[in-house]
């Protein structure tokens, strides 16, 4: 066996996050290195080619494709308004004239003498790229985008849905094991990043949408409520483009699972500050987890919480590390590593795997495969 790699989710009161902000296609970068930006600063802009329409003229005019250019009123590259005549027949008796009009305002892109179809394109649509973070532009990539950096408190979730958003952090639950309930959400939460405790059910999520919260951060939820929220069963964990009215971040997983105390305490300290939240999750090559980023001023620290050692390479799990069990039968339990036997150990399935002994807060101990724990980092 080569390396033991036990990845964990980062929860830290202070780190530096650097985000590459890249346009989907070449465009113009609007800021330069060392510029200060906020979440809503447009850092780059591009023009997305317009939607394309195909009009089969030969069928409508009753002519052969190779004769089409003779009947065209508008030529390739020419602008057209909706309703403009694109092509027409010229019969001897005008009464029998047939014409075909443009269904859109745009440009004639191609006229094909092979297929007899004309391709029309709508005007390009502008795409604006926001900075997403409050911070500094540290690098500009001409025509493509920028890199924005900020000192911040940083919390990774395990799963999320919905895109990038930002708002003020507000705690709705008073402890990490308290469920978020409908009555906890009031109109006061509109535009806010609301932090719950252990669980949010379908009715709470419906209420969040009605109230207009920007994001919900909670320990867990049921799969059936996710299905109800999305309107379909999510088969593969690639998210970030959903549009359910708010961004959702689960810090622990599916089911009713108290939020890790450290995560909850940090969010509590960050109450009232602006958080930038993304639900985008991708769990395969290029792992991406949802995140809550709270930008800090240079040199600023979150009072009452010691900074961790994020950014340093972990040497693997050690005795004394705080861990979270991420699989049954101890799923969601948080404990401390007390033993790391080096040899492969047979578990009840008869698989031989590397294990660790974990002690839970009530003093009980359990042997857990190393693959089934997550170090609580930060």
């Amino acid at each position, binding site marked *: 066996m080569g390396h033991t790699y036990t990845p964990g989710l980062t929860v830290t009161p202070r780190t530096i996050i650097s985000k590459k902000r890249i346009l989907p296609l070449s465009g113009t970068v609007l800021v330069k290195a060392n510029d200060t930006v906020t979440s809503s600063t447009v850092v780059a802009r591009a023009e997305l080619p317009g939607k394309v329409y195909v009009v089969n003229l030969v069928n409508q005019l009753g002519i052969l494709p190779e004769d089409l250019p003779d009947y065209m009123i508008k030529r390739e590259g020419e602008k057209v308004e909706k309703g403009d005549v694109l092509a027409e027949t010229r019969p001897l008796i005008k009464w029998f004239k047939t014409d075909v009009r443009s269904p859109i305002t745009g440009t004639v892109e191609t006229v094909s003498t092979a297929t007899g179809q004309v391709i029309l394109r709508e005007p390009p649509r502008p795409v604006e790229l926001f900075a997403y973070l409050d911070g500094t532009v540290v690098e500009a990539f001409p025509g493509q985008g920028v890199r924005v950096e900020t000192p911040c408190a940083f919390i990774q979730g395990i799963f999320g849905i919905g895109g990038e958003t930002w708002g003020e952090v507000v705690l709705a639950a008073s402890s990490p094991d308290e469920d978020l309930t409908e009555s906890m959400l009031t109109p006061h939460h509109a535009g806010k990043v609301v932090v719950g405790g252990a669980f949010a059910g379908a009715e709470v999520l419906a209420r969040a949408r009605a109230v207009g919260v920007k994001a919900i951060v909670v320990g867990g939820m049921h799969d059936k409520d996710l299905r109800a929220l999305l309107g379909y069963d999510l088969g593969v964990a690639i998210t970030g483009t959903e549009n359910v009215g708010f961004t959702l971040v689960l810090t622990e997983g599916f089911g009713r699972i108290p939020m890790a105390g450290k995560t909850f305490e940090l969010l509590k300290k960050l109450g009232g500050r602006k958080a930038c939240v993304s639900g985008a999750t991708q769990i395969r090559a290029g792992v991406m987890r949802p995140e809550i980023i709270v930008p800090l001023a240079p040199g600023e620290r979150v009072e009452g919480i010691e900074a961790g050692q994020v950014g340093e390479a972990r040497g693997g799990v050690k005795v004394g590390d705080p861990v979270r069990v991420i699989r049954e039968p101890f799923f969601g339990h948080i404990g401390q590593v007390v033993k790391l036997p080096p040899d492969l150990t047979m578990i*009840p399935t008869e698989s031989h795997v590397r294990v660790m002994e974990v002690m839970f807060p009530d003093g009980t101990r359990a042997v857990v495969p190393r693959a089934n724990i997550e170090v609580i980092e930060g």
Partner: protein
Amino acid sequence: MTTDPGRPLQTIVATDCGSTTTKAILIEKIGDEYRQTYRGEAPTTVEAPFEDVTRGVLNAIAEIEELSGRKILDGERIMTPSGAGGNPKAGVDIYISTSSAGGGLQMMVAGVVQSMTAESAQRCALGAGAIVMDVLSSNDGRLPHEKIERIRSLRPDMILLSGGTDGGTVMHVVEMAEYIAAAEPRPRLGMSYNLPLIYAGNKEARERVTEILAKKTALTVTENLRPTLEKENLTPARNKIHDLFLEHVMAQAPGYKKLIAWAGAPIMPTPAAVGLIMETIAKKQGINLIGVDIGGATTDVFSIFQGVFNRTVSANLGMSYSISNVLAEAGLDNIMRWVPFSIDEQDLRNRIKNKMIRPTTVPQTLDELQIEQAIAREALRLALIHHKSLATGLKGVQQERSISDVFEQKGSGESRVDMLQLNLIVGSGGILSHAPRRVQALLMMVDAYEPLGFTELAVDSIFMMPHLGVLSTVDEKAATDVFVRDCLIYLGTCVAPIGQGAWGERCADYTITFQGGREPVKGTLKFGELRLCPLAAGEEAGVSITPARAVDVGAGRGVPVERRARGGVVGLVLDGRGRPLQLPVKQDERVRALKEWNRALDLYPG
């Protein structure tokens, strides 16, 4: 990095750069045969912070160095040939590699008629090791602007455009070319280069297609992959896909230019290499074969029937990243029918989602293991259904019918997968290769595939098929030696009579005779019964089986059959559960039956 071509290879190092792990193996010539001797692995380093695939390759090879004591690396260089400087424990004769890092080769294919040229194009791309993101055709039911939007939003690595038999339609092919041009497709990797596009359609449309696409794509024209309705000619287009994969796609991925320079043979997409070794073995042994590789995200199925190779990839059927999709596609009832206990639906759904978001976890309890293996059965079953639908004869071919065909009206495009003609099933992927008991892997495949008559089963020991596939392009003997001796673990043979009957009724009488004076075993197999007869790897037994009147063991209803059966680490399994396999509908009867079968095969502890 190769050695003198006249000298036989003595030492080979091969890597497979997967999405998450780079796996290296060392193959050495010991006496007259090649054996896989050491292996090493390291995380793949295509992505940040390393962004150089060769780092992971060097790390994996360094692990082999440590284990074998052979010096392979000289700094950041692979030493060739072996025995350099007079040290027999230094260097290798060749380095070869496959790659699926960064999501593998992702393609979009297009043709004119969905069930003809578009399907041929799809088979071509899949056979070349690609993931097919979408199949466009003139009659796919989408409006032109929908097609164009789809092309634009996909961002594949490459497009394969076919359409029209030679001398057939030009207009429809040109129409598809126009849609592609209008979409201005952009490649997935790299902003500054044109998307590679292969045109393999009607040769009479080449000029028009070139006019339309040459400026907007990196166009390559090759032979028509469906020159006539009766003929598929996939090899030229498939070779072009491999060329472009190296020249364009791989060259954009970080570190690959260096990797290509190191390799002594062209780097292949991982699934293409797996397909190649299976094809080589099937042809060499003259057998029909199904191979399956069930991974975390996808399930690949390969088949070779009567020498015809087919591959499909079920992109969203897998055991971790895509596990939730198996539940969505198979449905809860189909999964639960394999589980010998009941569980609350909400709890099960949450567990499956938790596996999806934490894909590296392993089952710790027996219940969890049984649930995962139940899901695997459904993923395997669905992937085979998908495979059967695409591994077909050519559709649209005119057939002459005689009076004798009246009673057997087979259309064109019948599936080539004939389970009764199948000789061997090879399973690969963690859930099969690492099942705590080998018999679990055997039963998962038997339950999912329902083999008919006599079928051998095997698993890939440590997933070295990609390495052996690319090796077969350099040295076929070395590849087949290692495949037979080190890669495959034979599980045994399943004998499954076709037919159904009331449980407890006679299905077949059997006599099993062994080599070396072991007492023959005689008995009656009843419907609803599973029996296991130990037969070790390397051993063979004679099986004489007389089925009941309505039951078929391959020679027709009620006709006795005598065959040789190969042993394995599990042995000989007699499956009297009937074909098609039907499980009891009532929950308590089903659970009782599952428990009985588990006991008969000693499937789980306790």
